[in-house]
Structure formats: structure tokens, C-alpha cells
């Protein structure tokens, strides 16, 4: 018997949310869960009640980012919209139709989005700066400190200070780079790649390269642990968790594998306060896994056609929003 079959169950603690369409992203706006959808809506859920907001009428949400107070969505209508927990929504920017491919929010209030090669960064005072990348930008991430943006594209990533005249810094590595993230200590920039691998650059003290390969599929979801020591990734039939607790990063170290099952992991989300990882699979299952001892809790059973496409913890780590491809979403409330 596999461990998951005997995992104690939290399935009774999940409140269903009928989102009705592919969940592109989930987030928490205070105590309101927000599900951004492939049909262009944002569904807000609180205390068992839901409210549908037409953030992108007749379009679809492609990407979303949240700072805990607002949900910013980018659509295939070429619009960037911002939705609040009260159900208000407004247009932040419009490209004239070009799909919004990536979005990033800065905790200081700045926002960045990309459409094709064009990246726009708007700071907290509303000043916009443009950057034209050498090829389409697939991922954006703000540095944890300072107003600096990482942009992933073909053959590497570029680090840009939008409000400084300094030349953007190129991080080169051959191939097509998808998403990009910055380690919480600002020391590493990591990208996911077309060739089912991750690539990392150590920014300090040198420009060391890290290759994290061996994935059977692309990594399209990742999460840093609250202490910044662990980096969990999707793309294999287990969550692959890399150690980043030293200056060297994961080089020369084996990753941990959590929640190995005969199904691909599609989403991972670290608990904001504990070394507990929420893992979503392509077959619809969701598990909570404690990193320290590998113990598992079942949150959602397998469900055909309902692969997990979004997971998000609330700020305190009491609630987990779960979004699947068929819109049969849910909210887990941890007991106690």
C-alpha cells in the first residue's frame, strides 16, 4: 500500500467553490480567496459565499500576481486589471490586444508586465519605464530588496533597475527560459526551461551556474519555504525540493523528493510559517507533506479531468485555496 492511501484525511475540511472555469491562479486578499479564471472572471470566496467579478469580459486570465491586498491579472485581451477583495475591478493598463505573458508585483507597490518582448515597469508613484528584451519575455520577478526586475527570455535572463540608467545585466544560458524567480535572500536567480530543467545563477559572490535537471516534464510551479532554505518545484512524479540553505545553493547536493505518486506534480506551495508543502497533482489529488519527516495528509482525492492548476496559502497559513483545471475549486481550512 502506498503511503498516500493511508494518509490521514483533511478532505472533510475542504469547502467546495464552484469557480466554473479553468483556474489560472489563486490568491488571498486578506481573508477573501480569489480565483482567476480562464473565462476572464475572478471569483471571490469568503465564508461559503462567492462573488464573480468580470475582470476580463469575453477574454481569459493568462497570468496573475497578488501582494495579499489586490489581485493583478493579465489577459488575452491585452489588459492588466486589478481586483480588490471588495469586488471592485479596474483596468491598470492595456497593450491594444497583445497577450499579457507575465506579471510581477513588488511589495513596495510597483508592478511589471510583459507582452511579447516589451516589458513595462510601473513604480509605486506611477512612473512607467519600458524595456525591449532580445526575445519574448516569459517570466518576471522582482528582487526581494530594491526596485530590480528579473526577466526571463530566450538564451537567458536580464536583470534591470527600471529607475536607474545603469545598463541591464545579462545572465546568459543557451535555451528557452520560461518562468523566473529570485531566492528570498536575493543571492540566486532561477529559471525554468523548455528542456525540462531549471537553471540558476548565483549572483554573489560570482556568476556561478547551477543546472537542476532530470525532470520528466517542465517545471511550471515552484515555491520557496518561509525560511528561504528550501525550493520546491513541480514537473516530476514527486515534488522536487532543492536545498538553498548554504551559499553554494543546491550544487553537489541531491534534492528531496516529497509525495512520490504515479502522477505528475503540477503545483507546489509552501506553508508561510512551517516546513509543510502543499502538493497538487495532474490527477486532481492534493497532499500536505511535512518536510521534516515526510508525513502526509490527504486534502483532495483524485478526480479525472480536474488536475490542480493553482494553490495558495493565506497569510497565516490557516487556509489553502485550491484551483483545478475544471473549475471545481475549494478552500481547505486547517483544524484547530
Amino acid at each position, binding site marked *: 500500500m502506498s503511503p498516500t492511501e493511508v494518509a490521514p484525511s483533511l478532505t472533510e475540511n475542504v469547502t467546495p467553490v464552484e469557480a466554473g472555469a479553468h483556474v489560472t491562479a489563486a490568491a488571498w486578499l486578506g481573508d477573501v480567496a480569489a480565483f482567476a479564471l480562464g*473565462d476572464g472572471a475572478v471569483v471571490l470566496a469568503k465564508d461559503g459565499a462567492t462573488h464573480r467579478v468580470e475582470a476580463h469580459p469575453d477574454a*481569459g486570465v*493568462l497570468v496573475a500576481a497578488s501582494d495579499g491586498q489586490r489581485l493583478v491579472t493579465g489577459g488575452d485581451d491585452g489588459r492588466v486589471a486589478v481586483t480588490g477583495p471588495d469586488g471592485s475591478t479596474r483596468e491598470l493598463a492595456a497593450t491594444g490586444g*497583445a*497577450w499579457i505573458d507575465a506579471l510581477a508585483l513588488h511589495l513596495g507597490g510597483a508592478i511589471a508586465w510583459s507582452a*511579447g518582448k516589451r516589458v513595462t515597469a510601473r513604480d509605486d508613484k506611477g512612473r512607467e519605464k519600458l524595456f525591449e528584451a532580445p526575445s519574448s519575455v516569459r517570466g518576471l520577478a522582482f528582487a526581494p530588496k530594491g526596485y530590480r526586475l528579473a526577466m526571463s527570455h530566450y538564451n537567458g535572463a536580464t536583470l534591470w533597475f527600471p529607475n536607474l540608467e545603469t545598463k541591464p545585466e545579462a545572465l546568459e544560458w543557451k535555451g*528557452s527560459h520560461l518562468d523566473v524567480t529570485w531566492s528570498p535572500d536575493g543571492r540566486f536567480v532561477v529559471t525554468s526551461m*523548455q*528542456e525540462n530543467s531549471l537553471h540558476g545563477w548565483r549572483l554573489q559572490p560570482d556568476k556561478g551556474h547551477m543546472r537542476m535537471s532530470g525532470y520528466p516534464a517542465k517545471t511550471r510551479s515552484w515555491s520557496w519555504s518561509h525560511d528561504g532554505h528550501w525550493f520546491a518545484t513541480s514537473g516530476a512524479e514527486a515534488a522536487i525540493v532543492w536545498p538553498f540553505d548554504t551559499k553554494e545553493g543546491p550544487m553537489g547536493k541531491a534534492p528531496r523528493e516529497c509525495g512520490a505518486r504515479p502522477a505528475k506534480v503540477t503545483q507546489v506551495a509552501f506553508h508561510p510559517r512551517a516546513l509543510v508543502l502543499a502538493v497538487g497533482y495532474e490527477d486532481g489529488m492534493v497532499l500536505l507533506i511535512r518536510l521534516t519527516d515526510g508525513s502526509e495528509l490527504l486534502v483532495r482525492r483524485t478526480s479525472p479531468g480536474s488536475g490542480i492548476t493553482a494553490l495558495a496559502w493565506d497569510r497565516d497559513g490557516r487556509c489553502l485555496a485550491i484551483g483545478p483545471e475544471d473549475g471545481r475549486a475549494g478552500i481547505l481550512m486547517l483544524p484547530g
Partner: protein
Amino acid sequence: MPDKIPVTVLTGYLGAGKTTLLNRILTEPHGKRYAVIVNEFGEIGIDNDLVVGADEEVFEMNNGCICCTVRGDLIRIMDGLMKRKGKFDAIIVETTGLADPAPVAQTFFVDQDVSDAAKLDAVVTVADAKWLTDRLKDAPEAKNQIAFADVIVLNKIDLVSEAELAEVEARIRAINPYARIYRARNCQVPIAEVLNRNAFDLDRIVAIEPDFLEEGHHHHHDEDMQSLSIRHPGAVDPDRFMPWISDLTQREGPNILRCKGIVAFPNEPKRFVFQGVHMMLDGDLQGDWKEGEKRESRVVFIGRDLDEEAIRQGFLSTAA
């Protein structure tokens, strides 16, 4: 397993009439909803709800294979379209007049997410009956598009004489004898013949026969692009055939645009069917040899500067 979304690739040199054909497809009363991926954003006159602008970013894959290029923008767009599943039944990708169809086709071989969600249906090339002969001389892209095609719409036939038409068809046949040719004015072709071809579906490759059977066909030879068909009247040895085809496509991949084959293995009731694009090969045992059917082995290559004799000898040396 839900049905994969069929994808038709529409190519053709500048001015041949791609957009006309696209609009014909979109306005026919077929009840199907299409997502259309066009090359220049904001292109006017496409009558469809879901039009996506693509920037034709061709990327090399990091797998040490120089001809293994894919359309990065297509991977990204497919990822986005899959979030709107149920909103459309099929996808049409229109390429620029100067585009090589190979990266589009290879995207379906290389990217797992794309091939999980969608399948390549056919490469349809629109050719200008009046100007194709000239373009085949001065534009390698035009030749690639003909060589790659499963279906060729020979458009603007009202602008040429019957003799000129026979001439241009012969030139097409010299490059690609296997594509289905439809003569058309203003792209008026039966749309059902253009769509749902399943040209890349292994279990639909039931026979490999040239499209022309007419009498008095005069043969043309293209200077650098050839098709090569080799038949062996029996089975081949899989232990020799598989390494041979794999090695050939690895070595000659940059020159081989398309290949297809149906071969017999000794004591194997099923036929081995394969098809490929440059270095990418897709093959499987498909469908039984029928009662009384001649168990023969046949391979076809379309490519540039192919060493016909070496390939012929190589294939025949794998005979069982």
C-alpha cells in the same frame, strides 16, 4: 483521454492567397469554432472571434541537434489557449510567406505540453499558379513550403493557360509527388478536403501513393529538391532497419524535410508505420497487414541534395 485539438498549418508565399483561404475556412457553415494564430498582430480582415497574434520566434532546442528548431511563441500561445478549452474546436496557424514550416511541425514533436493538448493535422500550402514557377527558382522558402505540404491549393488558375498550369503542377510534382493538389480560383476549394486530413496520424497513413495517376505526365527534375521513394518487395529486419532509419535521419536530418514509410517485419502481423520531420521521427506498429495484402516495405523521403543511391542501398541492405 480527451480528444486532441487538431491544428492546421497554413503556409504559402507572399500574395498567394493564404488570408483568402483562411477566411473561406472561417466563413463556411461547418459549425466549428476556430482559434486562429496569425503572424502579424492586428492583421486586417480576419473574420473570427479568437485571433491570436504570433511573432514567429524560432528557437533552437538545447539538445545538440542543429535542425531541431521550434516555435517558442506557439508553445506559449498553446499554453494560453489551453486555459480556454471548450471555446474552440480546432486551431489554424497561419505562417508568414517567408516562413519555413518545419519549426511549426517540430513543435508538435518536441513539446510535450503541446502534443498532449493538440495534434498536427496537416500542412496546407497555398501556391500562386502564375508566380510559383518563378518563386521556386528564386525563393528557397517557397520550395520548402511545397516540399512540406500535405495539401497544396494551386490558386489563381484563371490567370494562366492550361499549358502553364500543367507546367507548374509538374514542377510541384518534381518536388513533392505526395501532396494532394487542388486547383482553385480565389481559393475556392472544398474546405472538407483541406481540413481534418490527419496527415500526421500514424494510424491514418494507410498507403503511400503519389497523387497523380494521369496519363502522359511529363517528368520534371528539380535542381536541388527531390522526392525519393524506395520499395522492397518483402520484409525488412527491424534490427537493421531501425538503426538505419535513425542514423539516416540523424545524419541527413537537416536535408530531409519529410519522410514516411510503411514497412513489414518478419513474423509481425502489424505494419510498422513511421513519419518524420527533419530529425524527428515518430513510428509505431499500426494496423494488421490484411489478408492477401502484399507484405512489402516502402519508404519515402522529400529533401534537398539527397544521395539517392546511398539511401537506396542503405534501405535495401536492411531486407530480411
